[in-house]
């Protein structure tokens, strides 16, 4: 009887652990993309400040409530502005930010291309 009980217990543990692991992974992913507002230069995931500890808890609760990653980002950027997200959204304020690398890449490419043609000649 005892063996059966232990067996059932182990089975339950194995059944729930992947679920929990998935939740933790999502929580870590989200908190890594959140800026700790009172300890700039650190993500919420890395920080142990009071604010970060509470924010981790809020993210955990929101995941439990069934909110998606996107919904949690929206919820937090409504509370704290977009600054809290490390990955800024694509909008008219961030066009420059998103297109700058592409622009630099194109200009660099053009310079190299021009030089190559010159060498060929």
């Amino acid at each position, binding site marked *: 009887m005892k063996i059966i009980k232990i067996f059932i217990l182990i089975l339950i543990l194995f059944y729930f652990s992947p679920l929990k692991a998935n939740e933790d992974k999502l929580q870590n992913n989200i908190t890594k993309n959140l800026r700790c*507002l009172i300890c700039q230069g650190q993500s919420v995931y890395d920080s142990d400040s*009071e604010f970060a500890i*509470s*924010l981790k808890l809020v993210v955990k609760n929101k995941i439990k409530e069934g909110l998606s990653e996107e919904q949690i980002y929206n919820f937090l950027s409504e509370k704290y502005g977009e600054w809290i997200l490390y990955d800024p959204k694509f909008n008219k304020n961030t066009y420059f930010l998103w297109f700058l690398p592409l622009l630099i890449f194109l200009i660099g490419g053009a310079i190299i291309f021009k030089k190559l043609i010159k060498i060929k000649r």
Partner: protein
Amino acid sequence: MKSKIISFLIIIPLILVFIIFYKGLNKSNFYEPKSKIENIPVFTATTFFQKKKINSQNIFVKNKFYLLNIWASWCVPCRDEHPLLVNLSKNDKLEIIGLNYKDNLKNAEKFLIELGNPYKKILIDRDGTKAIEWGAFGVPETFLVFENKIVKKFVGPLNFKSIEEIEEIIK
């Protein structure tokens, strides 16, 4: 001609970088989040003295000014602003609600006995999640509320100027 262009190309970015850094260093490093919340959040919290659960909708009734003050006994700036709050609590156009942030309740009680209790109601935020609902990121922070909307937000301790501002708004 070519060397002139090259030196020009080097000097211009250097000047630009200098201007950016000079301006950037003059700017205060303190970041205040640009919160987009207008309506106050709905939440349930336990009251400080009666230890009863209460919904925020039963606290912030329409047609009255409320001042939600996030405080803690361990927070030194809260000590500085507390006499101002006690003074402000004499104004009957305004109800001051306290949100006790991540505090030891015994210490909080001592704090109130020592400095006075300006709060009509005090709610407990043991894990700091309620403060996040308000878009707060530290203590003290104060929100002036009217008709379930945040009229004004004060980050950091209140001072004479902010008290004057509050009194001007609730006039």
